[in-house]
């Protein structure tokens, strides 16, 4: 298995790993949270790793308990949200669009 930014599979969970995951998940964890989560995550990952004990190659995976295939409904134009309704819950908008701060940082 190739080396990932997280370290090889089975490697211990460190504060660096948790910082990396928090960045991927877009959560600005505090240093204290990172330390606490590092310990908790290690214990949880150890506990859930037992799934690999019985997951032999001959067992097919199940992604969905009751699989349905080719689920389509008629493509009929209907009443949809108005722009005002769609924007009503947004933290900031200009009347027709959602408004956010700069997408690119200055260094980019």
């Amino acid at each position, binding site marked *: *298995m*190739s*080396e*990932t930014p*997280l370290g*090889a*599979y089975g490697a211990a*969970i460190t504060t660096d*790993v*948790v910082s990396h*995951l*928090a*960045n*991927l*998940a*877009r*959560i*600005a*964890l505090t240093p204290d*949270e990172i330390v606490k*989560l590092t310990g*908790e*995550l290690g*214990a*949880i*990952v150890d*506990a*859930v*790793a*037992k*799934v*690999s*004990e*019985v*997951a*032999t190659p001959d*067992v*097919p*995976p*199940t*992604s*969905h*308990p*009751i699989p*349905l295939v080719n*689920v389509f409904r008629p493509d009929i134009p209907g009443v949809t*949200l108005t722009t005002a*309704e*769609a924007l*009503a*819950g*947004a*933290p900031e908008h200009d009347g027709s669009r*959602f408004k*956010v*701060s*700069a*997408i*690119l*940082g200055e260094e980019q």
Partner: protein
Amino acid sequence: MSSLIHLTASALAEKLSTGEVSSVEATQAHLDRIAAVDGDIHAFLHVNAEAIAAATDIDARRAAGEKLGPLAGVPVAIKDVLCTIGMPSTAGSKILEGWIPPYDATPVAKLKAAGLIALGKTNMDEFAMGSSTEHSAYGPTRNPWDLSRIPGGSGGGSAAAVAAFEAPLALGSDTGGSIRQPAAVTGSVGVKPTYGGVSRYGAIALASSLDQVGPVARTVLDAAMLHDVIGGHDPRDSTSLTDVWPSFAAAAREGARAENLKGLRVGVVKELDSPGFQPGVSQRFHEALELLTAAGAEIVEVSAPHFEYAVAAYYVILPAEASSNLAKFDSVRFGMRSKVSGTVEDVMAATREAGFGPEVKRRIILGTYALSAGYYDAYYGSAQKVRTLIQRDFASAFEKADVLVSPSAPTTAFTFGEKIDDPLAMYLNDVTTIPANLAGVPGMGLPIGLAPEDGLPVGFQIMAPAREDARLYKLGATLERLLEDGWGRTLLSQAPTL
């Protein structure tokens, strides 16, 4: 009219249909009850200011001779995970504080179409992650049996509202036991339908392949009547089954009338038969089995060897799906936004830091880990294989038994703080309920008595093959009648007066 709050939903519906009671009277009685006791219980995050107006409308329509559904005019509480037009929908999270959705979840729309009166939104663990409501951003709900104890979770608000007579009915959602475990610890009845039996449209998603909306009530018949209202195909949910469902209320009535249980094979899942469970839970469970045997049921032991991997598989699949589902809380389209300056990503990360509680962060980070390149096969891929093995265990068990049974939860209601600092201990509390979610089969929790050591309610779980929800209601109603014949009263009538 305080006695109105103690009626079952079916009895109240009867009085509404004959005109003996108006919906305004019934709704006001429940609003009064909420005002009187919810300061202690904290089952509600929001009380519907339009409830009386809705009840007035139903009364007028009934007076005009309109044909209304069987539960028209009956009040109902709604778990805050479901989107509701005109009422805040926060899923117990600060990140959605004050958010008012522009549409109704399908189960909510069905309630309204059937004339039920929404009393308000009930408390829950944030984004339904938890077994105690201690993870609600708005403070915990307290158990009506003992205010120092948890009401279960995540749907502790719905269960406590029903058990405290603040609502005759409530909606819940069950991803790993969030309807059945709260029912167990509050002495109420809750059902997780077959996956796809009730639409998930408008239910704020936790883990999409596990989530299912279902009824919470004080009796099996009431749960069945509510299930009849909310169930059925919805073209807006691609996982919604197109089955035509039988009347669950009819199944419950048939079960309540049944003279015996001859010919019914009740499978006791060996792996869930009280390994290390609280003694009083195990004792009441075995007494209930004796009651079923005396009524003519055949008790068979079945083995589900992979159930011991269910909690581990669940805590890979759930965080993985949740970390994806919760990516939508990006401070752009809805919910809160941090005031920090910086790029949109800085604002996003600061918002999610401030808006999510500790359990949500824990599971998002865990899910992100499980889905990472190089780890995906070892965790998520393996967990999906375990899911197959658990489905096979169910299939083979259902060859030997018509229904499977277990205690609903390993313990009675625990005290606040007992497991909050030990996530793994909290997760293991779901050991009995998780297998049904992984396999998509329906499960019911109903009360079977009080544990001798602490006087708190004990729950009994019934599971049936997928699409056979009617079996839950039939057997549940028979067991409920046998138990109440023995007690001479209902379980909830034994709860302390609030």
